[in-house]
Every structure is written in structure tokens, then in C-alpha cells.
């Protein structure tokens, strides 16, 4: 009986992550259109795109090995695995154990490895640029992310995601939220780190890595990217709000509201800011790291939880 319940639980989580994730880029685009005074694409545009890509044929580079298709699949599974480890408010996580937070970080690293590897399969200099930027900037965003995790660990006195993300973030919440938001923008290649709308390959990170992908592999990449965005939005919301301590419906509302605010925030930033010059990106990431570091110091001084 327990097995059946566990099965239903995992299936429900899977469905939630898989179905809700493509909503986020739609909301961002709607916000951007609204700020610019346009009508913009429908919120569900990514669903239509994914459905169409699913049926399309594939053009492979003459140079590409089978890993060109396997890479997006592995990256997609890795992000999905990381999402399943993330607790959803009082409902907890599909699987929780001591140190699962490190597994989440390394699953995201696995996704990065697979994406960059698949990008370099083509031998294109553009994709080389994108992959080089992706893996290099990840060094700084990883430092910021680990610092944020340490702040949460110290604040909650636990190294398990479920208990780490339950209490409110306390005095350092604003700092932690700002730092994690910057990491979210960098890891998901949004403005001001990268511009998902640009068509000039020289200036991109994520978009340029997937230039040669088409058909179902491209669908896997786009869907994986939207799940990663949702993952970071959920992580940010739960790090700042005490979602785990709320009754189920309030928690669901808080979670949805938090994710919505983060998504609208991304859209507003995208509308109001320009993309940074590449040499300034490390500076901004270092700022994110410092924000998380101050959050860590605040948590340290905040007394035992």
C-alpha cells in the first residue's frame, strides 16, 4: 500500500514539474510584451513549440557523434532529478536524505557537462564560445550558490533540503534573496548575463550552445531549461518564505505566488535592463557571491535556530 502511495506521490510531482515548467518562459515573455506595449505571444507558446518540435525531423551535423542526442537527454533527466529532490512546501520531497542538497548542485553540474559536451560535438566556434562561457561563469555562480546553501544550513542547523528550506530565512532573507536571484539569472542565462532573444551568436551563452540542435533534442533542451528556471524559482521562494510551516493550501498559494513574483521580476529586469558587457559579468557574479556571503555572516550571528 505504501508503495502505491509513494508511486502516486512521485507521479504527481513528476506531472507537476513537467507540466507547469513551460509556463514560466511564457509569463516572462508576456511581461516583456506588456512593458513594451505589445500583445506578445500567448502564455502557452512554449507548449505549442514543444509539441511541434516533438514531431519534427532532426538535422545532425556531419561531425556529431551519438552523444549529440544523448547529451540533451542526460541533461533533461539530471534537471528533473534535481527537481524531484527539492521539497514542495509541507509535502516534502520525493526522496530526502542527509546531504541531498549537494546532490542537487551536482545534478545541475551533470546537466551543464552534458549540454556543453553536446554543444562541442559540432565543432562550431560559436558553440565553443557558448560552452566556454557557460562552464567558466559557472565557477563563480557555484561559489555563490554554495555560500547561499551554507547560509541556509547554518540558519536551520540542518544539511537536509526539507528541513533547510522549512524555516523563514530570518534577518538575512533580503540579502539571500537578492544573491539567489542573481544566481538564478546567471544560471538560466537571462538578462543581464545573457539575452535569450538575441540572434547575434557572438554575444550569447545558452542559446548559442543549442544552435545546431533541432527536433526532439531541441524540445528536451527547451523543456529542461524551463524546468531549471522553475527549480531556481522554487528554491528562492522556499529559502525566503517559511513555506514548509504553512498549512497545505496556504503553502501552495505562497509557493505559486513566490514563483510568480520571481518570474515577473525576471520579465521586468529583462524589459528594463540591457545585457551587460561580458567583461562585467564576473563582477556581477562576484556581487551575487558577496550578497550570499553577507547572508551567511548574518545567519552566523543570528544565534542557533
Amino acid at each position, binding site marked *: 500500500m505504501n508503495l502505491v502511495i509513494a508511486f502516486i506521490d512521485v507521479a504527481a510531482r513528476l506531472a507537476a514539474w513537467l507540466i507547469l515548467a513551460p509556463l514560466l518562459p511564457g509569463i516572462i515573455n508576456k511581461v516583456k510584451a506588456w512593458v513594451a506595449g505589445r500583445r506578445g505571444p500567448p502564455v502557452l507558446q512554449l507548449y505549442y513549440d514543444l509539441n511541434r518540435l516533438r514531431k519534427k525531423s532532426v538535422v545532425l551535423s556531419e561531425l556529431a557523434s551519438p552523444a549529440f542526442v544523448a547529451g540533451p537527454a542526460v541533461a533533461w533527466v539530471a534537471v528533473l532529478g534535481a527537481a524531484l529532490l527539492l521539497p514542495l512546501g509541507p509535502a516534502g520531497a520525493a526522496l530526502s536524505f542527509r546531504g541531498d542538497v549537494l546532490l542537487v548542485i551536482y545534478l545541475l553540474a551533470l546537466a551543464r557537462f552534458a549540454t556543453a559536451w553536446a554543444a562541442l560535438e559540432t565543432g562550431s566556434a560559436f558553440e565553443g564560445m557558448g560552452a566556454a562561457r557557460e562552464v567558466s561563469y*559557472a565557477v563563480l555562480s557555484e561559489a555563490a550558490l554554495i555560500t547561499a546553501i551554507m547560509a541556509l544550513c547554518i540558519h536551520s542547523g540542518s544539511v537536509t533540503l526539507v528541513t533547510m528550506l522549512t524555516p523563514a530565512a530570518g534577518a538575512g532573507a533580503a540579502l539571500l534573496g537578492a544573491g539567489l536571484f542573481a544566481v538564478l539569472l546567471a544560471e538560466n542565462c537571462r538578462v543581464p548575463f545573457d539575452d535569450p532573444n538575441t540572434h547575434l551568436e557572438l554575444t550569447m551563452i545558452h542559446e548559442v550552445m543549442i*544552435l545546431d540542435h533541432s527536433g526532439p533534442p531541441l524540445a528536451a533542451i527547451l523543456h529542461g531549461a524551463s524546468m531549471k528556471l522553475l527549480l531556481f524559482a522554487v528554491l528562492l521562494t522556499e529559502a525566503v518564505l517559511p513555506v514548509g510551516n504553512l498549512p497545505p493550501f496556504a503553502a501552495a498559494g505562497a509557493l505559486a505566488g513566490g514563483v510568480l513574483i520571481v518570474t515577473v521580476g525576471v520579465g521586468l529586469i529583462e524589459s528594463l535592463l540591457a545585457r551587460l558587457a561580458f567583461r562585467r559579468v564576473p563582477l556581477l557574479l562576484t556581487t551575487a557571491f558577496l550578497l550570499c556571503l553577507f547572508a551567511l555572516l548574518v545567519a552566523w550571528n543570528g544565534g542557533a535556530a
Partner: protein
Amino acid sequence: MTTGELLLIAATGIAASIIVGLRAPRAWLVLTFTGTAAALAAAIAVLAGGAEWEWKSEFLVGGESLHLRLDGLSALFFALLSVISAAGAAYAHEYWTDAEKPESAPASRSWWSVMTLALGLVLLSSNGLHFLIAWELFAVSSYFLVTLERQRREVRAAGWLYLASSHAGTLCLFGFFATMASRTGSWELGPMREQVQLAPLFWLALAGFGVKAGMFPVHIWLPSAHSNAPSHVSAIMSGVTIKIGIYGLMRFTGWLPVPASAPWTVIGIGAVTALLGIAFGFAQNDIKRLLAYCSVENIGIILVGLGVAMLGVSHGNALWGRLALAGALFHVWNHGLFKSLLFFGAGSVLHATGTREMSRLGGLWRAMPWTAALFALGAAAISGLPPLNGFVSEWLVYLGLLEAVTSRGSAAWAAMPALILLGMAGALALASFVKAGSIIFLGAPRTAAARHAHESGFWMRWPMLALAGGCVAIGLVPVFFWPAVGRAAGIWQASWPYGPDSPAPVSPLSVVHVALAVIAGLAAAGLWWLARKNGQRRGKTWDCGYAMPAARMQYTGGSFAGIVAGWFSWLLQPERRSQRPRGLFPAAALRVETIPETILERVIEPVADVIMQVATAARRLQHGRLQFYIAYLLVGLSALGTYVALGSDPNVAQQRSPLRLAGPPAAYPASHASTWRASP
């Protein structure tokens, strides 16, 4: 068979293979396999819970009776040694054959056996004097292995640097063992944590073993030695011999007391070693040099684990110390497996193309699918990615650090910066191995050598397969290997329970890893199937509409590492040389960027130059003129006489020197009277 009998078979087999190796390659291989298999069986017997093996003999070597011991800690390293030694021997059977290398192949086999034997003796010795003898034998034999191709100048230079650094380390170890023997009154080794007066000796051990392990900044010999040695030798050096330095540190931090500042120092050195080692590695263009620098990084991770464990002991046997120690010990195995695999892969590439320069390669996956796939697996494992073995050990070390942070004790002040630095080092390692794998194996061949590459044969392939199998096995079922690591950790600190009743913290990882491997495999197959079903065609790589993409337009390793090399330019000090295209019809243009051995060339060599100058100046004192020598004697004697006449205090003269060797002072043998040699 008992452990002793197995070890006897192992020793006989390896010793016989030293002689046999000179003539008969096949018989050498059989003997090496037999010996290493017996050694592995002995190690497994001890690790699986059997009694530790100890053997004391009345037989004297150098005036000391033989005392050998195989306990859990040495058995862990012993198992790694036997696996890599066997794999390397098999690999060399095709890689370094009599037909291709008639001058050095017989020597390579014999020295391989000598080094295996010497390493085994280092691990077994329980007597300081014999430890030193075995240590020296190991250093010399690995010198001859490094310089097998000594007709090449850079190999000779690497060999000399290795020999010199190695002996600088050995000098520290001489001081370490001799002082220990003088203070305890015996060369016998064993647990003596209660003798607190031995604590300062830790610094000598750290310097001596640290040189061998390749810790920053005394890693200077490692990149050139590991990159210029034949690839099977690089594999055992990176996989095993640098771990012997770690073994020394683990052994003697487990047996001896350590000063209070030692854990902090080890964590600090470890974290810096990890980050700077991989920063150097990422910028390299030579594949084997990149792998060598990455070994420096992994030694850093192991040192952090060891340092946290030492800190845990001084913090009332904290749980996080146990986790970090288990992680460090696990990483010894894991790094041994995947680094040897990667060096074998690099050797295959070198064998097939004749170059180690990554920017001359590219597109090799088509010609060498096995090597490419296995190298990719090793690259993912060394980047610490789940579901492979690198993640298991790094997870344990990181978890130890994270728990130390969460404990909010003073240990957190070491753990917080260490965790941040290790996190950055981990991301850089991932970047380095994306670069190495993709520049070598993906895209289009950049040169004719890369176009005409060929896959390696059976004897080079199956050792790689076996090591890759080990990486996957430890990754998927770490629970199975956990008791062995726990047993070794329990030897280091006896009061730490790692027994079967303490729940293995790695068990959830097994579940996740197996699920991840299965689902990722299914997803990849599903996506491939879907792409095939929808129709799949091949086209040129998209290059912004450019009609004729060429192999030279691909991103190179240097440009891939450019961003990070810029961040670390204060350390890497890249040397740039460029000639811009001039005029309407430019004839030539070039841009060369090389990464020097900064620490060696900018730090160590200036110091060495000063020492050389002082030594050269002092050398003028010796010129062969007898009357001046007599004058020196007179000056010396009169100075001594003045000193005795003025400052002699009978009480001071009676005091025992703390460094005096135990036992009655022996009469100074006449043969030790120094002889003067006139310079020509």
C-alpha cells in the same frame, strides 16, 4: 590461504618478474598478474574483515629486525596498488613493446616490477629504517621509469627535477624517522599518540610526504614528470605513487600526535592546492600536463578531507570528521581508478597520433570510439558527476565540511572557506574535462595526424575497460565498498565506529545513482528513437551561413580556457607572442600563448639561483693549495681553543642534547674520516 601466504606468493611473483622481465614479456605479464592478484586477495582479506596481518622476524636488515604489517589502512592502498600495477602492466604489453621500443622495453618491465615491489614494501614496513630503504628504492625505480625515453632532452630535465624534489622530500623523512627513533629509542613504528613530545615531527612529515603527494607549492616536479613519462608510468604515478605520500600522511597522523595548528594548515593547503592546481590544469594545452595538474587538485581534495578529520578528532570526535575521513580514503581509490583510466586514454591518443597537444587533435571519436567513450566516462567521473564514483567521495568530503559548518563551532571557520574553494575547484575541473574531452575527441580533425588516428588494440583497451568498470561499480553501489573504507578509517582513529551497525551514509546514493543511470539511459535511447522515427539527416555545422567551414575555424583549447586564464593571469603569467597581419596581402600572422611553470620558474628557481651563488662562492675556499688548508686548520683550532678557554661551563657540556641518538655512543669509525679532494 592465509594472508601471509598470499603476500609471500605476491612477493615471489613480483621479485621473479624483475629478472624475467628483461627477457620474456609474456612470462613477465603472467608473473605480474599472479603477484598482483595474490596481493589484491591479501588486501581484500584484510579489508573484508579478516584479522590484520603482522609478521616479525629475527632476520636483521641494516641492524633492525624485519617487521611487516598489513592493516586496514595499508590494505586500502595495497589494493589500489595491485589493481593499477596489473592494469598498467597489461597496457604496457601493447603500448611499450619490444618491437617499438627495443632499447627501453625490457628495462621498463623490470623497473615496473621493482617499483611495484618497493611500493608494496613501503606499505608493509613497520620499521622506520626499512620504510626509508623501501621509500628510496621506490623513488629511484620511478626515476628510471620516468626517464625511459631519456634520449629526449625534456624527459631528462623532468627526470632530474623529479629526482631532486624527491630527495628533498626524502631528506625531510630522514629527519622525521631519525628524530622519532632518537626520541622513542627504537625504529619500530606503531600507534603512539600518547607521546605528545613527538607532535612537532608532524611538520617534517608534512613536508616530506607532501612533496611526494604533489601538494602546492611543492608540486613543481609533478607536471613535467607525469607528462613526460610513458603513459602507463604516468598512470601509476598519478594513480598510486602520489597516493603513497597521502598514505604517509594518513599513517603518521593516525599513529602520532599532531600539533594543534596542524589540521588548520592541512585544510588550508588542501583547499589552495585544489583550486590553484586545477586553475593551472585548465589552462594547459598538453593533455598529459592537464591530467597531471588535475592530480594536484585531487590531492588537495584528499588533504582537505584528512584535515577535517584531524580537526574532528580535536573537536571531541565529531561526526563530520568521520565523514570527511571516509571521503578522503574513498577518493584515494576513486582518483586512482579514473586518473589511471584517463592517462591510459591519453596514451592511446598519443600512440595513435604522436602528439599530446590538444589543439592538433580533434574529431578522434570516429577513429577511436572506445577510447573516446571511456575517456568521456573518466572525464565525467573526475568532474565528480553522479552517478559515477568521483561524486561519492567528493560528496562525503563536502558533506563533512557542510556538517562542520552547521555545527557552528570554531571548525566552521576552516570549513566555510574550504567549501567555497572546493566548490570553485569542482566547477573548474568540470570545465577542464569538458575542454579536454571535446577538443581531443569532438568536432573535426585539426591536423593530418588526427585524421589518420587508429583505435588501440586489445591489450590497451581492456585495462581501460576494467578501470571504467571499477568507476561505474563504485558509483552505482558505493554501499558494497563502504565497509572496506570504514575499516581503513577505523584504523586511523580506533574510537570511530564504522562497523556494520553504523548506517552507511552512502546508501541513499546507491538508490539515486542506479535510478539516474537507468533513467538517463532510457531517455537517451528514447530521444534517439524519436529522432530516428521523425527522420534524421546530416548537414554541415551551422556557421552563421558561412559556406565553407574548416577545421581550423574550431574553438581551440586555449580559447576555451581564455576566460578563466584571464582571471588567474596573476598566477599563470601567460607568455604571449603575436604577429599581426600587415598590409593588403599579409604573408604571415601568428599568435602563440604558453603557460609557463610559474611556481617553478618564478619562485623556486630564483631561490635555487641564490643557493647556487652562495655555494659557488663557498666553493672558492677549496682550491687545492695545501698551505691554505693548513691555515684553515690553524684558524679553526685557535677559534675552538678561544671558545673553550673563554666560554666553557662544565654544566652545559654535561647536558644531553635532545637530538642525541639513543644507545651508547659508538666509537667513530676510522673510515669516516673525511678525505680532502683537490679540485682539478
